[in-house]
């Protein structure tokens, strides 16, 4: 028992350290953005060349980026160093973040997805992991690091403050094999949608910047400058939804199978079920929109951002405010 308490305590400490790591990463990403003003022009130039070379022979984005990083004339050596450091710290944070979940699982001898604290922590973890995957595949996406690590840091602080729950046994209603299947897939789908929504929001900023002929002033200009090309952002956002949507669909089906044996029906328009339905429809609409002439681009991206809002409402408001079967209460 004291072993379990020790593990749970260690998990709590690691949770704090994770937040610390992400906030340091966010500062480093912010520094990379702030001190790269001259490099940006070079980057811009390169990204056009890159696009041109993609068109002709399909060379991957990797080498061009390498040139940018090593280019001593760009004056952004500090910036690229900061970006690398930030990536390293984010990776470290993700490892710690994963350990929090692992330790809580070990402490309670169960899947660490038994309450809102653990669910929200897992969703944030998947979001960060999705960003890291994209950023290692397409290095230009590193530049959006601030827009992932900052919301995750703030989110985790709020989760720690308002949703914290002691590590403990599951309530009877959650003691089912389907818990692992349903909640794991929900977290993965949700995490993917989270990252995708951020990418689409940044796509909207960047595409407006590109429309203004790369000469926008003020905030739009300063942020738009630093972002990867709108095509890169749009593709990454789409890829994350393509990854998340089937998993989320499976999660809903698994939830229905579980509900059939737990609540007497596979679907009953419980508030959470209703919002799963709404979210599913919004992402189905995004996929349709992105494949339809006239809806591609900004309209589709707005749908994806709406999806993000729906998912956050679904996680926070429906679970915490509306009383329903998903309120993680006992059987009554």
């Amino acid at each position, binding site marked *: 028992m004291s072993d379990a308490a020790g593990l749970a305590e260690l998990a709590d400490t690691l949770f704090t350290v994770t937040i610390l790591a992400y906030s340091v990463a966010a500062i480093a990403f912010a520094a990379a953005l702030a001190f790269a003003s001259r490099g940006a022009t070079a980057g811009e130039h390169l990204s056009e060349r890159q696009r041109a070379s993609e068109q002709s022979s*399909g060379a*991957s984005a990797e080498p061009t980026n390498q040139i940018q990083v090593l280019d001593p004339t760009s004056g952004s050596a500090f910036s690229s160093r900061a970006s690398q450091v930030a990536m390293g710290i984010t990776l470290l944070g993700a490892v710690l973040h994963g350990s929090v979940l692992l330790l809580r699982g070990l402490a309670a001898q169960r899947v660490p997805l038994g309450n809102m604290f653990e669910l929200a922590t897992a969703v944030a973890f998947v979001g960060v992991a999705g960003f890291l995957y994209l950023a290692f595949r397409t290095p230009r996406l590193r530049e959006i690091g601030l827009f992932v690590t900052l919301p995750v840091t703030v989110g985790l602080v709020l989760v720690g403050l308002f949703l914290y729950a002691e590590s403990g046994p599951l*309530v009877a*209603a959650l003691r089912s094999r389907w818990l692992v299947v349903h909640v794991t897939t929900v977290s993965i789908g949700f995490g993917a949608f989270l990252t995708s929504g951020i990418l689409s929001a940044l796509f909207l900023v960047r595409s407006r910047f590109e429309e203004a002929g790369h000469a926008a002033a003020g905030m739009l200009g300063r942020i738009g400058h630093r972002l990867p090309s709108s095509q890169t952002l749009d593709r990454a956002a789409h890829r994350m939804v393509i990854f998340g949507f089937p998993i989320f669909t499976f999660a809903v*089906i698994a939830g229905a199978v579980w509900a059939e044996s737990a609540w*007497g029906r596979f679907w009953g328009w419980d508030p959470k079920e*209703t919002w799963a339905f709404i979210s599913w429809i919004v992402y189905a*609409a995004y996929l*349709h929109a992105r494949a*339809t002439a006239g809806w591609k681009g900004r309209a589709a991206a707005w749908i994806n951002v709406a999806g993000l809002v729906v998912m956050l409402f679904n996680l926070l408001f429906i679970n915490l405010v509306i009383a329903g079967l998903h309120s993680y209460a006992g059987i009554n």
Partner: protein
Amino acid sequence: MLTDTKSSRGPKPPMRVRLVRGARGWWRWLTSMRTALMLLFLLALAAVPGSLLPQRTLSQSAVAQYFADNPALAPFLDRLGLFDVFAAPWFAAIYLLLFISLIGCLVPRTWGHIRSMRAEPPRAPTRLSRLPRHAELDTGLGPEQALDVAEEELRVANYRVLRRDGALSAEKGLLKESGNIVFHLALLALLISLAVGKLWGYEGSVLVQEGQGFCNTFQQYDTYSAGPLIGGGDLTPLCVDLEDFQARYEPDLTPASFTGDISYSRVPGGPDEQATIGINSPLRVDGARLYLTGRGFAPIFSVTLQDGRTFTELSAPFLPTDSATMLSEGVLKLPDLGAGRDQLALQGVFVPTAHDLGGGLLTSVDPRPLDPAVAIVVYAGTVGLDSGIPQNVFTLDQDRIARGQLERVGAGNLRPGESLDLPDGTSITFTGFKEFAALQVNRDPGQLAVLISSLAMLAGLMTTLLVRRRRVFVRPGDSVLEIGGLAPGGSADPAEFEQVVKRIRTALAEDRPDRREP
């Protein structure tokens, strides 16, 4: 899916033509992608009030509470069907339009896909350099030989290849559209299976105390709902007795399990079978399922009248208002204490583990019945069970108290064995408690079909999202091979095309005459 096309408008065509054109225009509008997207959004939007307003299907009492809290607004919302959103006509209108739009979209697309699967890959364009992807390879081979090599490589890479007029047309990924069509057909199947379940399904709930039982007939349920096409005689024969109910808790009072030991028979008067049901583990019998959906305590009282007559084992289920401590509220109505006599009603709370808050207020500190007690108020008068108006068995009619038809005659907190004496000499004794279980019998004949359709949807979805459509064309030039690639309906993946080019290049290098003979 389908895209809008502008309909041509001539100068004043005859009426019939205009009608047909109008209908066609409507049909085109309904089956356009833009409309489908709008209907999807409307459907999502329409579902929102179903989660924010109380729903009759989920909780009648929450709806009643809403009416009490918002007397001006509630009847208006009710007229719009907002307390039963998912059965409202406007909700049905949206999904039926979507259904029709889907069919209108799917039928031509399925035929188109079947045709394209049978058709040959399209002819190679004249200028391959105009395609999104393009490469030129040095061959050192004759045109025919070089084409042979390329054809071989494309076939190995699972392309359908056609050689025509000295050029190759290759195509891959038709499965993408197949997956898309399977997904949407399965969606239709899902909707039909849902309808089957709604029409022929039923659900009945009943509270059963330990030692009692019920049979699967509509008359014996406290509440039930049934599809319009199911009759009372169609219910699965099943009789159930609840022999024992057990609630187990972890040391920190987290509920660990709730189980009911039951005996049941499938034919009236047939042999009994034993089973244990619990949360997450229902009993499945011939398509019907028996669930344990809730539980609670039923305090037991005995009443001794002033003339010495005694009524024992009087009990009613008290509903838990707090699942963590099992503080429960309820009413025991006693209308049959003898002719010409006042009826009695006991209203109060049951606490499984009592804690005195002072001033006679009781609360519960533990969900387990370690130190049970009741706090009751006794009313005398006419309970009104014979008035013909349906009553809630868990509450007293407050109007009767206000009108003086029920008069408060006593109140007190009782532990097991303790009695409360009323002014007229009647004595009420709290003798103990029983546990009860909320049991539910369900049948949904569409359920298996719903599962199969949704798995087919998932399979179709993954196919259509993961498979990419590609076309590659190869045309030999003067000891070079020109290769062009495109991805219909999407952006061509550069890496993918590069790989094909690389394969062909490698194969060509192996076949070069100068390499063949060292």
